């Protein structure tokens, strides 16, 4: 089985600080993969470089065997992206955003309309489809962004913190859609630091810390009998237990 995503020695430096220092990420085709790591581990930078939004200082990125930076034509039609933050065209309505996206990708307008209507219905955005994105809540934005990323039926989907700031109801919708999507053999790569969620959803996990991959593989091989949270804390190294100091905190009367 070929790998959906493979990077070799991916490297990025901002000024004097190395954000990503030689990442070898592997995601097998058809997997629901989680990229986990503490804040500042380099997850967003890695995903940006893989999706062609940030130029790496060194290293190789391949998606389905195509080099992202040398052969963008072979790659860009096959990937869907939901980047960090909530960066959407603010002055379009949710529906217009989807139509714009589909047309930009060269899908015939009738087909775009059909797909957009279906996506809006499944994402529960029908009532607000004609409101401007600028007035959307966080959950609505994530759903609209995911709908836009799915519209052209990509083979690999990259999501940066798709569940951050999303209420349980919207999160459930997102999860259902993504499950259906991977069941058909497509690949999802998403970053998160909610371990429970990753444990529940993913069959493949890559753990990042300080710009490096520190563990990678099927979730059970990374977990090795522990919960993912425990395994993660062991891998990342717990920094300070918080037991010294703070003696005044709490309602003890002594």
């Amino acid at each position, binding site marked *: 089985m070929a790998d959906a995503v493979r990077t070799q020695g991916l490297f990025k430096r901002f000024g004097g600080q190395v954000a990503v220092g030689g990442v070898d990420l592997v995601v097998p085709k058809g997997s629901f993969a989680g990229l986990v790591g503490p804040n500042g581990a380099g997850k967003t930078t890695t995903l940006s470089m893989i999706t062609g939004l*940030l*130029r790496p200082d060194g290293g190789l990125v391949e998606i389905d065997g195509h080099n992202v930076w040398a052969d*963008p034509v072979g790659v860009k*039609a096959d990937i869907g992206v939901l980047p960090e*933050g909530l960066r959407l065209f603010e002055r379009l309505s949710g529906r217009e955003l989807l139509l714009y996206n589909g047309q*930009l990708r060269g899908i015939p*307008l009738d087909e775009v309309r059909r797909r957009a209507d279906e996506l809006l219905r499944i994402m529960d955005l029908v009532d607000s489809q*004609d409101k*401007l994105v600028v007035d959307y809540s966080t959950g609505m934005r994530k759903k609209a962004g995911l709908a*836009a990323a799915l519209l052209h039926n990509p083979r690999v989907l990259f999501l940066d913190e798709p569940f951050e700031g999303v209420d349980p109801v919207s999160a459930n919708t997102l999860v259902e859609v993504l499950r259906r999507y991977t069941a058909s053999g497509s690949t999802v790569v998403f970053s998160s630091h909610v371990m429970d969620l990753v444990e529940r959803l993913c069959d493949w996990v890559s753990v990042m810390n300080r710009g490096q991959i520190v563990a990678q593989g099927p979730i059970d091989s990374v977990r090795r009998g522990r919960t993912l949270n425990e395994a993660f804390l062991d891998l990342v190294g717990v920094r300070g237990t918080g037991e010294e100091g703070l003696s005044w905190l709490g309602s003890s009367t002594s």
Partner: protein
Amino acid sequence: MVTLFVRLKLRLVRGGLRGDTIRQIGFGVSVALAVLAAVSGFLLFSLIRLAPDDVALNLGIAAFTLLTVGWIVVPLLAFGLDETLDPARLALFPLTTRQLTTGLFAASAAGPWPLASLAALAGGVAGLARGPGGVLLGVVAVALEFALCLVASRAITTALSGALRSRRGRDLLAVAAVAVLLLFQLPNLLLNRGLPGDPARMLEGAAAVLRWTPPGLAAHAIADGGLIGVAELIALGMVVVVVAWLWIVALQRALVRPDSSTAAGAGSVRRSWSGRFLPGGMLGAVVAKELKYARREPRGRITWFTAIVVTGVVMFSTRGPGGGEGAAFAVWPACLAALMVGLQAANSFGIDGRSLWMNAVVFSGARDLRTDLAGRHLAIAIIAVPLLTVVALFAGLVAGSAVWALAAAPTAWGVLGVSLGVGAVSSVILPYTYPERLNAFSGAAPGQGGQAFLASFGTMFGTGLLALPLVVPVLLGAYWLAVLAVPYGLLVAWAGRRLASSIGFNRLPDLLAAVSRPT
């Protein structure tokens, strides 16, 4: 409490400057300008002593009023520059309203510009006081007037702070800002048209009305220096107390009311019908999006609005008694309008800002970028061509004959094409972020001012240079050359897009980074 707030303010200023050379330089320049304003304000104000008493008084009244108005208007336009301005950030601290009021008042007084205006106001004592009584009253009057400036400014920003943080409020204010700028242009226009009556009479008329406003009372009290002055100061003091009370009320409301920026309640937009006439695919999608943005994005509306206004001002102000008549006076305002409209394409990707990634993940070759640019140009042309036609017709009428529009309109269209072509190149070479701030006139994100300056002036210069062979002969009387203007413009625009897309596609990640800087 007062020292705590002042220290907080100073610390915020220092923190904002740390590690950012451009901002440090900016702050240095700002302080230097404030000192300059303080010294020159004081000196100029003292100089009115040399004028006859009544003229001096009128000048003083006008100056005091202008300063107060400035204090109310300027912070509104620059909202978000000063952290201590926003009371909602302090809502969680256990502070009484009185503590908050005095603290915020002290914090707003601590800064180069408040101190500079205090110095300038103090010049009023030197300029207006006649005798010891005047000096004595003057000190009190200046203190009260200074307090009035601060309190009024705070009261207005506090009352509006909720509205300012919501989208619609900001949109509205951005448009209002244009109106304010227009007001500043008004005297200029009037002077150009040759106003009936002399400036001295105008000043007298204005002062007669302004004399009864609070700042006018302050100025008059200094000049009077007697019992009437005392009465005026008491009235002024009462005004300050009332405004301060209004401020407290607004503050209390702002602290417990929900933030209106989180409240939902925005309406839906109509589904667009214009899409039906557009070609399908990428080109049509970009055109449709750009047309929507021109309508819905306040920054977009403002660029169109200012282009029209500036052209209107130029059209009328060149046509004074000294101005000439002739076809040239129809051609060049139209060309200027075309340039102004075209300048907004000098940073085409700036308006997309952080959402530009959506295009970037799709573009798989320079050809796609070229289509995108073509879509943007087409959208501008759809609005600009009819607009420039109207401008040309109007300029023709103002200059003497509507027939001249036949030369003016095609030349303007050609200039538009040239500026779009040049703008496409500068969009990919010198991209910068438009700040998403209330102030629609600030040019670029912190640290990108130089780039913004280069991009707009480069485009202006480049357009001027490339348009010269076209415009100069037409201006000189070779009107038939206007026939060639449109093909020439189209050619330059096409070449610009071709060059820009081949440069830009390789720079796409850099382009993306440049337009999504934090603001």
